């Protein structure tokens, strides 16, 4: 069932066994798992089916340093399906090392190991429409693939791990019909939770206050509440719900909103691969299920430990688009198309830098001198991306000179001073807006600096080419576009100690019996991996636990009175 909240009677009280707040990847997956589970479920979504400027504006907030972090209303979507309506689709599981407590990464360590999530990853892969859970060349393909670089042996990096790509699947469009037809799930659109209310002892959430954009107010009472609103809004709602616990829910030790992480990502350097053109393959391979897969250079865990640095992967990449010196018609066409490319993608393609008239002229010249390349690329993007349901994931430019740059994606280390806080300003529903003070550390710079140095050494030793970059510019380049957009991690981190975490290993908020957090807010560390697959795996795990608890009975689904 699906309803619009504004059509409910004023001051209605809705009841359910489970109330899920937020219909993004995590919220939708949990609701799907609870279909026909013998529980009444309410799924509250602040937005509508499609985009709404008014709903999106509820995300607006402040950032401490605009150079380092995008405005809070960017890179996330307040609508049914959440940010899966715009995500890029890159999937890969976290590595075993990501779960470990590492003495060289402060505040690292999950309350469980990779083994705990392995049973859930295959289904997560299916829900993301990323094919089978096979993330090495050997397990994903039953035939040999052409090597990334022929005769290139790496000591410090593996070259056989894959990233797989979702369609990218819009979870709202893909699974909305199932939720609408479920008899035990009520989806309410335009239903913004403005606060969660505790009982007097502060140990249970008794109700959620909900409001529509049209001003209709109602409340939801449920046996269990799950916050699945994304890494920034989870912190906001926990902090804003302060009627009983003045510092906010689960925030007795001032941890909510701290340890805020994204990823450290960037493009750097220039490398000419000393091999024939056909001996280099940096594009996609397609698995039997039709899923786009791409190999990366992944820093081995033993090297991470030996170097005392975080997780890191790299890919061969095209030269910087903004610099017309690449003389590539396709890249210049992309530069000239910048007004047509959504902000979330344009930022890393072009940055915010202004280009001179001369640069524009050179880009036009590049296109004019390579019209057939530009047309072929335009047709490829129309056919394989714009019109396709399974979209070609990114721009792959085969260099005719074997010239590439290095694109990397690195772990950001937990930092209590990187945080999300509430401001004095409130949105039209009276909820305080957030301020994002994203900060990176010396450890993050070290991860990228040392990894790049190792990579340069690998290329040199292997005779594959010389990676040229200025080590002095690494920090500048890794923050050129600020924090990697859309990966909002760690603001309600899991852990065993309430003094340094917000939720326990079951994603339940410390000290509150019936409040759970689903999503990347609970990740204690960020890995090199994009978060969505692990968000979905954790959501499946949480749903399984809720169903197990329900099967055990003991008043699990009882609405508090």
């Amino acid at each position, binding site marked *: 069932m699906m309803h619009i909240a504004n059509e409910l009677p004023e001051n209605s009280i809705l009841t359910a066994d489970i109330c899920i707040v937020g219909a993004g990847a995590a919220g939708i997956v949990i609701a799907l798992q609870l279909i026909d589970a013998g529980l009444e479920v309410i799924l509250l979504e602040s937005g509508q089916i499609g985009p709404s400027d008014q709903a999106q504006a509820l995300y607006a907030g402040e950032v401490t340093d605009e150079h380092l972090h995008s405005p809070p209303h960017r890179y996330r979507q307040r609508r049914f399906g959440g940010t899966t309506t715009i995500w890029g689709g890159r999937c890969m599981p976290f590595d075993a090392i990501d779960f470990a407590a590492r003495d060289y990464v402060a505040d690292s360590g999950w309350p469980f190991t990779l083994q705990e999530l392995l049973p859930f990853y295959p289904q997560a892969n299916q829900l993301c429409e990323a094919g089978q859970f096979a993330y090495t060349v050997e397990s994903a393909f039953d035939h040999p693939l052409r090597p990334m670089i022929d005769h290139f042996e790496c000591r410090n990096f593996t070259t056989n791990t894959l990233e797989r790509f979702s*369609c990218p699947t819009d979870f709202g469009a893909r699974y909305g019909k199932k939720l609408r*037809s479920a008899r035990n799930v009520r989806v309410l659109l335009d239903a913004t939770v403005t606060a969660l209310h505790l009982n007097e002892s502060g140990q249970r959430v008794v109700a959620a206050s909900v409001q529509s954009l049209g001003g209709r107010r109602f409340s939801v009472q449920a046996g269990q509440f799950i916050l699945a609103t994304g890494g920034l809004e989870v912190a906001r709602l926990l902090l804003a719900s302060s009627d009983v616990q003045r510092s906010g829910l689960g925030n007795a030790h001032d941890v909510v909103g701290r340890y805020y992480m994204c990823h450290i990502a960037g493009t750097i350097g220039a490398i000419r691969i000393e091999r024939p053109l056909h001996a280099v393959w940096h594009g996609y391979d397609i698995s039997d299920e*039709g899923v786009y897969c791409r190999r990366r250079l992944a820093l081995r865990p033993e090297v991470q430990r030996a170097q005392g640095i975080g997780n890191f992967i790299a890919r061969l990449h095209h030269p910087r688009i903004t610099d017309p010196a690449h003389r590539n018609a396709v890249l210049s066409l992309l530069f000239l198309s910048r007004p047509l490319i959504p902000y979330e993608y344009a930022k890393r393609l072009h940055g915010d830098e202004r280009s001179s008239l001369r640069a524009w002229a050179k880009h036009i010249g590049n296109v004019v001198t390579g019209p057939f390349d530009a047309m072929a690329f335009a047709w490829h993007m129309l056919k394989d991306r714009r019109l396709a349901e399974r979209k070609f994931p990114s721009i792959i430019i085969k260099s005719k000179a074997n010239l590439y740059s290095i694109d990397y994606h690195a772990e950001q280390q937990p930092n209590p001073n990187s945080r999300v806080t509430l401001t004095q300003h409130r949105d039209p529903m009276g909820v305080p807006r957030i301020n994002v003070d994203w900060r990176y550390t010396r450890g993050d710079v070290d991860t990228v600096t040392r990894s790049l140095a190792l990579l340069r050494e690998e290329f040199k030793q292997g005779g594959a080419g010389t990676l040229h970059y200025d080590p002095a510019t690494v920090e500048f380049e890794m923050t050129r576009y600020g924090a990697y957009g859309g990966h909002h991690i760690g603001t309600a981190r899991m852990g065993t100690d309430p003094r340094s975490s917000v939720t326990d290993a079951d994603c339940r908020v410390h000290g509150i019996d019936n409040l759970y957090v689903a999503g990347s807010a609970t990740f204690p560390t960020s890995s090199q991996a994009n978060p969505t697959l692990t968000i979905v795996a954790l959501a499946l795990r949480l749903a399984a636990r809720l169903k197990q608890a329900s099967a055990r009975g003991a008043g699990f689904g009882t609405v508090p009175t």
Partner: protein
Amino acid sequence: MSALRVLVLGAQQFVGRRLCATLRATDWASCLGDEPAFDERNATALSDALGACDAIVNAVQGSPAQISSAAQSLYELAGPLAARPRIVHLSSMTVYGSAVGDVDENSALRADLGDYSTAQLAAERRAAAYPNCVVLRPGCEYGPECPDWSVRIARLLIARRLGDLGAAGDGYCNLIYLDDLLGSILSALRRPEIAGQAFNLAMPQPPTWNEYFALFAKALGAVPLRRIEQRRLQLETKVLAPPLRIAEIVARGLRLPGRTPAVLSPSLRRTCEHEIRLDSSKARRLLGMQSMTLETGLARAAQSFTAGG
């Protein structure tokens, strides 16, 4: 002991033909009804055949009119027979209509999926009035040479006109391997104690259609699987299907050589979306129904298709 003489109606069609071969391979049954001269639509011929057999299998497939007509003739003529021979009536899971979720033999018979399901239900009701009848409701029979759910699907997969359908392929694919279907029919002929009962026939824990297409495409070597866009599905089912169906009928009528392109029909599309799961535990329990593993079944179907060109 003399062999059980089994009259197979629909013996010129795929399942009936295979059933005759299976019956003949046993040491306890013989098959009637597949003689070229026998026309089951002729009431006199049918009446004579009924008088000369010990059991009947109604395996008539085809259009709603063919199903209705065959059932009417059979049960009108069989009703007065004093011997009350066992009739095994092959129905279809479409009698459950638009029901979703797990469906067993006690579930409501909605038959609300158009003329085909209505005709199947009407035929079942005639069967139910006959005292020594067993009704079998198979899902989608697959295996070597199975025309609808193996050959047609293989042709569409190889042509990349079928593949990963996204949400449109989330329905359950209630497959039954042909040998398992035939084994169940044989079992139903020999168990007097199950008279008057109905049985769902499908593999346990069926895959979704998307999973079926992915596995079958892999077995056929028709990979990588193609994602079929919604607008492409619309084009196939609404624009291409009608003329292709007409071409198929004309080609068959004129006995033209070669094959027309396979049809991706609106009903196939509906089936792929339909989240109904047949519970066939009763058939496993009382008929001793076997279930071929999907991997082996698909491998055999693919091998047969590839060998047949």
